[in-house]
């Protein structure tokens, strides 16, 4: 019952609360950067539906993404986790930076990604799947005391062609708290396209041009000592984004577990609000020229 109420609260908040070039991905990154001076605020929830009577959970996430320049986007994430008959906790923060080294549009556009994570063992958002990430069989309250500092890198390749976006991410993650643990690897692949290639002349919310559909495939690739697919989790996730207005986007993606190690489903729901010219407004607040 509590889970049901939690889901209702989440959906209600989504209705109350990415813009122009949004793709529907939750895990995969494309080469679109935040526009300089814009702040994008995203609330997102991952609902984990587990196998073998393991408890389901939900993990909310707040992301603030800012376009420092046309080639540098930075983000701060705050995350939490909750499960029925267990606990509801804040599970830490992440600082992310993305750099687009080459100006202009190319057949394949590389982006470099670096993230610092200061999170608890109870983290459940599964922003990406690496190593042997799989079932969450420990209680949140038992894992809350475990601190983890990690660094994560991604090599992002992305292309836009004939209305389609195709993106591939290669992921590595290193635990700094337990440095002896080997570096873990993962991947994410996404393909998407808007439902209409032309925009209608009238203002509308339900027009096809406001929807982008796609599919993601993501999972772990083991670690430095045992690289490969054995015992790893993989998910196939159809995804849909809906541009509600010039500055609001709603996204949903049910990710279905493909292997024995995977969870049954990771249902992700996200809502994004973009504040145009945020940097300029802050600058004016502190007496800067506009």
């Amino acid at each position, binding site marked *: 019952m509590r889970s049901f109420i939690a889901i209702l609260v989440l959906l209600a908040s989504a209705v109350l609360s990415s813009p122009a070039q949004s793709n529907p991905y939750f895990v995969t990154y494309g080469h679109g950067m935040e526009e300089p001076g814009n702040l994008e605020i995203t609330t997102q929830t991952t609902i984990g539906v587990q196998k073998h009577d393991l408890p389901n959970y939900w993990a909310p996430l707040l992301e603030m993404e*800012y376009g*420092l320049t046309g080639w540098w986007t*930075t983000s701060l994430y705050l995350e939490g986790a909750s499960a029925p008959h267990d606990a509801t906790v804040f599970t830490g923060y992440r600082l992310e930076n993305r750099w*687009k080294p080459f*100006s202009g549009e190319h057949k394949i556009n590389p982006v470099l990604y670096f993230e610092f994570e200061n999170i608890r063992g109870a983290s459940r958002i599964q922003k990406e799947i690496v190593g042997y990430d799989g079932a969450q069989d420990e209680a949140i309250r038992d894992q809350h005391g475990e601190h983890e500092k990690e660094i994560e890198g991604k090599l992002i390749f992305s292309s836009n062609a004939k*209305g389609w976006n195709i993106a591939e991410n290669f992921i590595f993650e290193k635990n700094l708290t337990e440095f002896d643990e080997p570096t873990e690897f993962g991947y994410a692949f996404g393909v998407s396209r808007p439902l209409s*290639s*032309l925009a*209608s002349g009238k203002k509308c919310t339900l027009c096809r041009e406001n929807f982008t559909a796609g599919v993601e495939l993501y999972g772990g690739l083991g670690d430095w000592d045992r690289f490969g697919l054995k015992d790893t989790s993989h998910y196939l996730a159809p995804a849909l984004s809906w541009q509600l207005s010039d500055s609001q986007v709603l996204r949903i993606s049910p990710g279905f577990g493909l292997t024995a190690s995977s969870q049954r489903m990771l249902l992700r729901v996200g809502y994004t609000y973009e504040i145009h010219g945020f940097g300029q407004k802050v600058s004016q607040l502190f007496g800067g020229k*506009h």
Partner: protein
Amino acid sequence: MNGKTLAFVVAGAVAFASAQTSAPRQNPAIDPNWVVPAKAAAQSNPLAGKPEAAMGGKKIFSRTCAQCHGDEKNPRKNNAPDLSSPDAQMESDGALFWRMSNGNSRRGMPSFSALPEGQRWQLVLYIRSMAGATKAETK
């Protein structure tokens, strides 16, 4: 990383952001390194015979372009050219299409390649209709 360090990082990012967004340029010149290839500039607009498509272009323009280039509601930023000006209107359809598709991230112009090609041509069509249009006061 403790709380003080985090606060320092965030404050630094805001200060850097302010510096990035407070450099006004009254008459932005086109970056001489941002050269449109001749083949791209020679492309013609496949929607040229469909003026009704410009209405869709106006909608996309207000969503993706107006916050920098300005329209009747939004003032134009100083570092973004006025697209109704003769300088911008002298560009060929293909050149406008290429510039919005590629962007110029070093000068703050994003790439809009994620928009379907049809919508980018609609934008070109709408930009053509802006020649001589009155804009809100430049910011």
